[in-house]
């Protein structure tokens, strides 16, 4: 075992352990990498130890070019725009009104509020492509109401984190865009392939909430019944209150499907649409614009800080031979195509405990996609399975980015422990979905086949 492989393992272990110090993840990622760079350079210059490619500080400065690539990544423009849209939608009072009206109608049913949150989560998923944005928005809309209705903190967190994370699977999805880019397949196929599993997951979540409503009313209580009667008028109002949100989804998805804008531009149109809604409700003024701007900055930037830290970490991992180690490992297994797919999924799942999807798409996919491609396996099927796993990785503790995004905006009193606990059943449902797609590839392949005739 060459020395740099020991360094690689030490870096992984150090990072994972130091995570629990409670210092910001972004600076830990960057800082731990920096410390290991210093160690590697000292070892190689002073003692002639083999540290693979990481041999001088000039080499380390490659991180600047990686930052520059984040700065000029046009696709990522949609991140602040979707966040802005969410925050503006929140300030417009539209989503709040919708939420409250829905609660009046469905709140009396067992699990009605939870179902409402999931449905709104799916609606948001269809309008945003970024997990950070949809989790944050959904949390701001629904956590206070759920807690007010005595949902357990854990269950409420689980519902929000899981439904919000659907946004990365249900198109438009920035993750699918980047996956297609990495492996050179068509985004259209991936979008279509992800739709059915994404919606099925939503259905699965809803079934779960209904069941919990019956089995454990202590953590998922119905609204105290009997104080008001449900009238046709209320139902009508509830229906009307969804129209502005549907209008917004129409702006975002419609502009994409009717060829008016790209998914990136659609995010900006959505933000503008939210401003119009706020204006229609007489809620738009300079103060609101300023506050939404500030909240957009802090929400966007904690995600970008992690991007920056993760890109440094990945760079150092590679410079000390991490890629070689991974490739050798896969070559050494001697598995067949199906075995390889299973192994890749397992690796993505485990990697998802510690790494950001962004990094997994960059590390694992280009490395393994050619192997899978040559073995004649349907790429769309394989990639959507990976996407499902990546989506799961957002929800798996300790490093689940949806969980962090959620932690950033939950009401005081909800701890990361609540969130970890609440998400467990949803992770299990995710795994069940992966299993179903492995057994019945048609869940993924049916829609792309219908749309474009071939895979």
């Amino acid at each position: 075992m060459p020395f740099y492989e020991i360094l690689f393992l030490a870096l992984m272990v150090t990072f994972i352990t130091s995570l629990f110090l409670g210092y910001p993840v972004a600076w830990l990622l960057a800082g731990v990498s920096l410390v290991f760079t210093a160690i590697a350079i000292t070892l190689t210059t002073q003692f002639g130890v083999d540290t693979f490619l990481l041999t001088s500080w000039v080499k380390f400065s490659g991180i600047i070019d990686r930052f520059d690539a984040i700065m000029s990544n046009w696709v990522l423009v949609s991140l602040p725009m979707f966040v802005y849209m969410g925050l503006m939608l929140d300030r417009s009072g539209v989503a709040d009104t919708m939420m409250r009206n829905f609660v009046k109608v469905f709140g009396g049913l067992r699990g009605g509020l939870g179902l409402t949150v999931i449905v709104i989560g799916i609606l948001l998923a269809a309008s945003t492509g970024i997990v950070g944005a949809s989790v944050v928005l959904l949390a701001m809309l629904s956590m206070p109401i759920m807690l007010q209705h005595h949902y357990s903190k854990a269950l409420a967190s689980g519902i929000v984190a899981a439904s919000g994370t659907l946004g990365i699977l249900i198109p438009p999805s920035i993750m699918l865009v980047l996956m297609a880019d990495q492996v050179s397949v068509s985004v259209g196929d991936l979008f279509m392939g992800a739709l059915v599993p994404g919606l099925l997951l939503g259905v699965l979540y809803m079934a779960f909430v209904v069941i919990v409503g019956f089995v454990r009313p202590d953590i998922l209580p119905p609204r105290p019944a009997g104080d008001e009667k449900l009238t046709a008028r209320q139902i009508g109002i509830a229906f009307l209150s969804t129209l502005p949100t549907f209008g917004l989804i129409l702006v975002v998805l419609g502009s994409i499907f009717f060829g008016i804008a790209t998914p990136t531009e659609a995010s900006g149109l959505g933000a503008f649409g939210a401003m119009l809604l706020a204006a229609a409700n007489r809620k738009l003024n300079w103060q609101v614009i300023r506050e939404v701007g500030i909240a957009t900055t802090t929400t966007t930037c904690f995600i970008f800080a992690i991007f920056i830290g993760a890109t440094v970490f990945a760079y150092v991992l590679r410079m000390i031979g991490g890629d070689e180690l991974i490739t050798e490992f896969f070559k050494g297994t001697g598995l067949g195509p199906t075995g390889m797919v299973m192994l890749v999924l397992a690796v993505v799942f485990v990697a998802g405990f510690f790494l950001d999807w962004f990094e997994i798409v960059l590390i694992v996919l280009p490395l393994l996609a050619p192997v899978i491609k040559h073995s004649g396996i349907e790429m769309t099927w394989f990639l959507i399975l990976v996407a499902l796993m990546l989506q799961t990785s957002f929800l798996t503790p300790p490093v689940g980015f949806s969980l962090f995004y959620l932690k950033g905006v939950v009401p005081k009193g909800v701890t990361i422990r609540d969130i970890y606990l609440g998400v467990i059943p949803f992770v299990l449902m995710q795994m069940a979905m992966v299993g179903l797609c492995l057994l019945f590839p048609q869940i993924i392949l049916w829609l792309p086949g219908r749309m474009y005739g071939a895979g």
Partner: protein
Amino acid sequence: QETVRWGIPMSFGSNLTALGDTMPWVSEQLKKVSGGTVNLQVFEPGKLVPALAIFDSVSTGKVEAGYSWMGYEIGKVPVSALFGAVPFGMESPQFAAWMYFGGGDALLKEAYKPYNVYPIFCGSISPEAAGWFRKEINTPEDIKGLKFRAAGLGGKIYQKLGASVTMLPGGELFQALEKGVLDGTEFSLPTVDEQLGFFKVAKNYYMPGWHQPSTNQFLYVNTAAWAKLKPQTQAQIETTCTAGVTMAIAKAEALQGAVLAKFEKEGVKARQFNKTMLDAFSKASKEVLAEEAGKDPMFKKVLDSMNGFQKQNAQWHNLGYLPRDYPH
């Protein structure tokens, strides 16, 4: 034999035939001819440094070497565009002739010396397709107002003809084309275009690749790192790269026929631009090239050398070969 280990970032994925798998082949060969001591380990785009930052990283010594299409640094080194691809310029064999025997290589080394880069010609591929269009293009009128994605000098030429040119990122192209955000896009060779799936959403596939009769890749080496190598290692690297040029030309040429046949089955009409169109493109190309030459003396010097070589060889080029459409 000395031991060398360099990380080589690439600007194309190794899954892109001829464009991206030449350097991995060169690297394998180098390992073999050196008995395993010269290891130029390739990295997929973005894994080490970003795909578009290879020139920059080599120039500043962040990596010893990198593999890229020459032209991504057009914003910093305008002349790079000429070495990468010239509209209505030379085809691969002729470009190689100019590089090796027409003074091209010396001009290249001269142009990159100020940036501490020693570029080695290391791959050239067949013409790119002119692009995928949602409608037929018969007259220059059809280009006016066309929403088209094109990079580099080709983009400037389309702009001249009145197209509304954008630079959408690769990942958004498919959907933009499908939904009509774009009316057309150029990308690469038919085999590479196939991998991106454009044939599913745009049915007019135009050729010839007037904007890129050949597309040339180079191994960029940091001057200081190069100087440190023993002559034996230098020769090994340059020789395998020369072999890489041959392999790239052969591979790019070998695979396109089958792909075009597949496109036909998918309902794609493979066509060639008519004379009127080509004349319009040619006229606009000359203007754009002249404008660029006016801005940068090195650009002018290299363009003159290329034009001179093409002119001197024109009679041979026209008479020496069977006409392209002569039946086999």
